[in-house]
């Protein structure tokens, strides 16, 4: 198994950049911590179904997708503005 660092690093960076723009509490729906846990589990299912895209040699899960998802959540927690 050979893990490619490229998609993990740049997936995290792109996710952080976009996650910084998520702001909750602006609409009449309320997303709680539980909602984000559900989104994360759904994301893991999508990443699993994507297979080992894009390099076909590393983990049996899409590392780029997973890194982007983690990046978005971390970016939301660290940099997100509240309105």
């Amino acid at each position, binding site marked *: 198994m*050979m893990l*490619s*660092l*490229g*998609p993990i*690093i*740049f*997936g995290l960076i*792109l*996710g952080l*950049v*976009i996650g910084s*723009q*998520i*702001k*909750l509490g*602006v*609409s*009449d*729906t309320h*997303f709680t911590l539980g*909602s984000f846990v*559900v*989104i994360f589990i*759904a*994301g893991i299912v*999508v990443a699993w179904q*994507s297979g080992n*895209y*894009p*390099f076909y*040699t590393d983990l049996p899960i*899409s590392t*780029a*997708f997973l890194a*982007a*998802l983690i990046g*978005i959540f971390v970016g939301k927690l660290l940099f997100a503005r509240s309105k």
Partner: protein
Amino acid sequence: MSQGSMILKLISLPISIILICLGIMTILGGHITPGGGFQGGAMMASGIILSILVYGLGNSPLELSHTYIEVLESVGALGFVIFGLIGLFVGGFYLYNVGTDVLNIVPAAIQNVFHYPDVTNAGIIPYLNIFVGLKVFVGLSSIVIAFAGFKKIVEESE
């Protein structure tokens, strides 16, 4: 402008986040699989567009500010041009792939700096994909944000 039902409002943010992740995945696999900067950027923009259409402008959890759009658009364009100029000055051709160096004219140190960390020997192509993806992402999003804003102005003036 918001016209979504409660079901739409509950499901749109999760779908938007997953669409954006799929877009990032498409960008990062662009050098060896179908897809790339433009396609991935359009997928990411579709996440933002879905969110703005359902929640409405000014009320959307995923909304890009003016400064953010400006900065990402500039970073995308400048990054592409700078990578092209690096190729021009180091290799002699505009957008020469200094990370792979097919013609063996680039010093090994520079080649190592621009080598993308993966098993394929793609050089600067993934970086160009990322810059193009960022530019397309904010470009398409800003078009929809502008249209939604115009509609809001027209509705207010009537």
